């Protein structure tokens, strides 16, 4: 499973203080960039990836050999146009694609961290991204964009470093993880930890990975990314191989086969411990518990917000975005918001959604004009 990742990497040889009170003595950031940074360094867009995403937001992913996860949106001539913008996308802290995470070597023991890796938060991930931006000597980002957990990071950016960004674009996201979302994550984590190969996180040396558990976690999560009507439309009750029921426990239905495929292909590219750590980071996320609540969190007056939500997204439903909007209205923040009609569920932010793509394009064009880029 462990493959060498060809991304650019920066090693930060200074301690990182984590929200948990713990600290990392040093850490590595793996990232990709697309397009060219202009002379005044005003055209940089940071893209934050979701739970199981990575730094390969566009182009070919060297591990999966597939297109990057946001290739529909990012690239030359696309909505986030790499002919105009310098796009930065880094693997999150705790990840398994080159940035320090539980599968990285602990410099103290010369062995993979496993569960010795400190518990991290979305805030910690953003601190690390900020370090990267500093290293790249970019003073102000044109925008921070992200969907799902990437949207959480974008909001965290707005809260922590609002003065360092012109615009923040959280998509299919929320200011906190709901009880239902935590519940689904916990089932996923329990599935991993119940796999006998998990061995309390010490599976790296023997290279026998808790694949079954991680695959089940992925299958559960994948259902939450879709919608009932999309599942019905795509699969219905269609049978996979024959015209008849097997009257057994082999794969009968197409949906079963699809989910199994999702699970199996996922374990080839993702680390089970990373899944535990990152899901937990999402669960801890709640900007409303910071001092003064949501109204006090976003204090940067010049910052523009542009939110997108999707009608059939039941993981991050529109009302979550509206709660943030409500707080932003009360402080007269510069906010934009659009709810996109779709039956594709939470995953719509990754898929072909013409209304979403064109509206995001309009916002970016507006920003280009306002900022005279």
């Amino acid at each position: 499973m462990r493959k060498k990742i060809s991304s650019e990497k920066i090693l930060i040889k200074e301690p990182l203080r984590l929200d948990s009170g713990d600290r990392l003595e040093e850490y590595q950031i793996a990232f990709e960039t697309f397009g060219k940074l202009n002379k005044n360094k005003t055209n940089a867009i940071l893209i934050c990836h979701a739970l199981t995403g990575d730094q390969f937001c566009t182009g070919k992913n060297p591990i999966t050999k597939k297109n990057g996860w946001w290739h529909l949106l990012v690239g030359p001539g696309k909505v986030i146009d790499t002919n105009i913008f310098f796009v930065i996308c880094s693997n999150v802290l705790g990840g398994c694609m080159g940035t320090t995470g539980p599968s990285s070597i602990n410099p103290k023991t010369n062995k993979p961290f496993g569960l010795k890796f400190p518990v991290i938060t979305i805030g910690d991930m953003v601190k690390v991204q900020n370090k990267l931006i500093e290293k790249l000597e970019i003073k102000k980002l044109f925008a921070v964009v992200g969907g799902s957990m990437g949207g959480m990071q974008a909001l965290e950016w707005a809260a922590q470093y609002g003065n360092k960004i012109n615009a923040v674009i959280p998509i299919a996201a929320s200011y906190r993880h709901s009880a239902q979302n935590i519940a689904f994550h916990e089932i996923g984590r329990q599935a991993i930890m119940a796999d006998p190969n998990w061995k309390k996180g010490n599976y790296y040396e023997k290279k026998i990975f808790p694949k079954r558990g991680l695959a089940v976690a992925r299958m559960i999560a994948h259902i939450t990314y879709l919608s009932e009507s999309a599942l019905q439309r795509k699969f219905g009750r269609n049978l996979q191989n024959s015209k008849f029921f097997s009257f057994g426990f082999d794969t009968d239905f197409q949906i079963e086969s699809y989910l199994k495929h999702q699970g199996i292909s996922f374990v080839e590219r993702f680390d089970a411990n990373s899944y535990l750590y990152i899901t937990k980071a999402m669960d801890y996320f709640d900007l409303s518990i910071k001092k003064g609540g949501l109204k006090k969190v976003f204090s940067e007056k010049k910052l523009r917000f542009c939110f997108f939500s999707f009608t059939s997204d039941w993981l991050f439903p529109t009302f979550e975005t509206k709660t943030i909007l409500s707080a932003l209205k009360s402080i007269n923040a510069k906010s934009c918001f659009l709810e996109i009609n779709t039956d594709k569920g939470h995953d719509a932010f990754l898929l072909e959604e013409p209304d979403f793509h064109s509206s995001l394009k309009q916002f970016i064009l507006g920003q280009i004009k306002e900022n005279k880029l």
Partner: protein
Amino acid sequence: MTNILRNDLLKISNLIKDNEKVLDVGCGDGNLIYYLSKKKSVECRGIEITLNGVSSCLKKGLNVIQGDANYDLEDYPDKSFSTVILSQTIQAMIYPERVIENLIRIGKRAIISFPNFGYWKVRKDFLFSGRMPKNKILPYEWYNTPNIHLCSYKDFYDFCKLKKIVVENFFSLNEDGDVISNKLLVNLLTYQLIFCVSKK
């Protein structure tokens, strides 16, 4: 740039002073607030229900959120804007009463424009044809019209009196969008109305 504004919007824009804070409820393509923010350095926000409207506003660099005036005004704080505008929309509201109360709560004043159902041609149409009146600003059939709460000058005036809403000023416009200075027979001669109202 001025010619992109409808006549009633142009009239409304003349009522806004420099450096005001304006919320346009049902801002459509954002032409009015774009004009205000560029020409009068007014700080503008907008709410619009349609995707195409919001999208056009985004391209203009405007701060506009998708929302429904019937439901999405509640969470604006009191007096957070100097002026709140509702142009040609009140007649399509499900809860005009609640909407107007919100407008004058959020804004120090509200500017509300609407077609006058007391206009003589409207009355004539109904009297002679016996069918629901139609004209340039009321172009719909009875079965597909979004305009479910039409009212006349007198209706609106009575409403303000009943709700103790202060009518600071009003303008009556003819079919060409010009202001009629004659304050007699307002209800009969006015095609479109612009009311400036505020809370007592």
